[in-house]
């Protein structure tokens, strides 16, 4: 089994990727503006819910329970979905999932597919696999379309083109839709996308979707969206293929009551999603006449096996943690080198694929806790980040200079005599860098600090020295 998460294995380390993005002033402006807007909307619609904390707690418990009995709920889903006329496929990793989907499309001799709302397909790099097999994928979610036409990568798990502003999108549309003219208003852009997509909806006979929830009890699949493009994808084609991570299952239809309140308010600051599509298998003469669900593992059972971080799989991909994150706010999603950006990406990517490709991600956080505060399913992201950091350290993945510095610090802090000595030595050692009471141009790792900040010089007398003197005076 080879687990791949997008192109994360080849991605640069987070600090290096972030460096370039932080200097992109337009991108930072776009990301700041967009996250500010969503944060504001979310805060308003969450504040009006008297039982928000109860909903969060219930969602967390439901997810934890489901994960504990995941195997039986998945089998229950398979049985129910099959009874309703669907076909369930099990994929161990990205390659297997891609092969299943390509085979299904080739069986029908189709050369094109329309796609909607599937981050999981980005995770397994499905578009690449389709193109390699001579199949053209058309993204139909507006933001995904912008990313695809712009030959770009998604930068947000709910708003994939969040890093682009209106004028940039207009440029992409003009060029890629081969338009002679296009207005500058959002309505003009939406109209252009509508014209472009309608033709595809009416012509292409196979669709690929993601899933927000799978219902074990009934075999139903649920997709929520804002545009209606999803509804078209889910209802117009003859063949529908849904790809879903195994953690997407919930036990009963009733459970959706909780999640469909939490998700839209957390994701887009809406009370309800404009389109909530829930379908069960196939219905003769209405909608797709062939329906497949590909259940994807791709590293998820590995996460399930770690009790310290299992709750990572509770995630409902609302993106609230991205919008709340002060780190994401500065870099946007591309710095995370994965389709999963922001705080949740920093814990999902390293756990799904082998840690060695994403050693820097658990450190891409100041541990401020804003993500945990807004998470609708109460994933304690900071705690998982710390857990993953300990795995990096245990696996000797931290830089040697850091390991030595931390070892030296631990030894200095082991007892008061050593600490006093270390304080004295530091005071002596700082003289080459001290100017006007500030330390400047420090070497090694500390250069990152003094590049943009001063650091006060270590004072001549520590607190413990002052206290000792005071005690002496008092006893004298």
């Amino acid at each position, binding site marked *: 089994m080879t687990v791949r998460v997008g192109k994360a294995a080849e991605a640069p380390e987070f600090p290096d990727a972030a460096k370039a993005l932080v200097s992109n002033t337009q991108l930072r402006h776009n990301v700041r503006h967009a996250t500010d807007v969503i944060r504001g909307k979310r805060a308003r619609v969450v504040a009006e819910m008297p039982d928000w904390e109860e909903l969060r707690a219930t969602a967390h418990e439901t997810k934890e329970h489901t994960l504990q009995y995941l195997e039986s709920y998945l089998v229950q889903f398979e049985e129910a979905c099959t009874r309703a006329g669907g076909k369930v496929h099990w994929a161990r990793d990205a390659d297997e999932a891609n092969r299943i989907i390509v085979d299904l499309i080739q069986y029908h001799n189709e050369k094109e597919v329309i796609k909607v709302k599937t981050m999981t397909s980005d995770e397994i790099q499905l578009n690449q696999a389709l193109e390699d097999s001579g199949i053209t994928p058309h993204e139909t979610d507006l933001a995904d379309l912008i990313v695809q036409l712009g030959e770009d990568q998604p930068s947000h798990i709910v708003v994939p083109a969040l890093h682009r502003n209106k004028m940039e999108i207009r440029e992409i549309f003009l060029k890629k839709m081969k338009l002679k003219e296009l207005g500058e208003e959002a309505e003009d852009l939406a109209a252009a996308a509508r014209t472009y997509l309608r033709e595809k909806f009416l012509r292409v006979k196979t669709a690929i979707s993601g899933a927000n929830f799978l219902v074990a009890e009934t075999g139903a699949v649920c997709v929520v969206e804002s545009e209606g493009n999803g509804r078209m994808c889910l209802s117009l084609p003859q063949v529908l293929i849904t790809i879903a991570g195994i953690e997407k299952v919930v036990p009963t239809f009733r459970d959706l009551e909780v999640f469909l309140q939490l998700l839209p308010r957390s994701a887009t600051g809406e009370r309800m999603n404009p389109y909530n599509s829930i379908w069960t298998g196939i219905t003769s003469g209405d909608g797709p006449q062939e329906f497949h669900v590909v259940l994807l593992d791709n590293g998820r059972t590995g996460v399930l096996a770690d009790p310290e971080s299992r709750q990572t799989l509770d995630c409902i991909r609302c993106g609230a943690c991205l919008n709340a994150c002060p780190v994401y706010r500065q870099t946007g999603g591309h710095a995370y080198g994965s389709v999963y950006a922001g705080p949740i990406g920093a814990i999902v990517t390293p756990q799904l694929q082998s840690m060695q490709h994403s050693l820097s991600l658990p450190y*891409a956080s100041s541990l401020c806790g804003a993500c945990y505060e807004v998470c609708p399913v109460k994933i304690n992201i900071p705690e998982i980040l710390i857990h993953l950091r300990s795995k990096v350290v245990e696996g000797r993945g931290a830089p040697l200079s850091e390991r030595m510095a931390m070892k030296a*610090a631990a030894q200095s802090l082991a*007892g008061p005599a050593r600490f006093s000595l270390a304080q004295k030595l530091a005071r002596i050692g700082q003289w080459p860098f001290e100017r006007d009471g500030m330390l400047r141009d420090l070497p090694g790792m500390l250069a990152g600090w003094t590049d943009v900040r001063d650091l006060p010089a270590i004072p001549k007398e520590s607190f413990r020295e002052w206290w000792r003197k005071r005690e002496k005076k008092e006893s004298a």
Partner: protein
Amino acid sequence: MISLFVACYNDMMFPDTGKAVVTVLERLGHRVEFRAAQTCCGQMHYNTGYHEDGMRLMVHFLKVFRGAEVICVPSSSCVAMMRDHYLKMAAASGDAALEQEVAAVLPRVFEFSELLVDKFGVTDVGAFYPHTVTLHTSCHALRSLHVGDKPVRLLKAVRGLTLLELPQSEECCGFGGTFAVKNPEVSAAMLGDKVRCVLNTGAEVCTASDNSCLMHIGGALSRQRTGVRTMHLAEILASTGGGGQS
């Protein structure tokens, strides 16, 4: 008797904060002890992933403060370390006695403003500080300690002090311990936002219950020659002279 855990970085880098805590507590009529064997709560090691080192420092902390009635800590982030992680660390060690020891010590640990407002029920500590001040609430104070308006109430009771509200006060300053050196570019960008907010208030002084954030914010205020200084909450509360920069 109040036992002061001054925090390792305050001990070495910001001794005035420890002195200020002693001043305020004694002014309120309390006796203060400083157990000289103390070093560090273990946060830097634990949060960076060096859990064995963090564990050793926790065990040392517990040994030093065994039997202490009330432990005062002028650093929200150290208190957050203890409350958020000590129990879990002790449980992971499988040592039941250690777990009991943690459970016994935690209710006796108070962040400085918690000690004054919650434990002693005091907001006016007799301070005089005729300056304009803005308050940065550290992430740990805000989200782990849920410190609420305690520092604000303490500052509002200081004679002569004008408190100016900091915009976007719930946003991290970008320090995050080793984050600032492991991700210097992003940290600097976050700091840029914070400094802009501090300057927009027009305050002379930026205060907080954590010198770690203040070292970070103050480092940029100083580098950019903004003329705004940082000062720990305890130092403002200790002030009676009304003078300028000490």
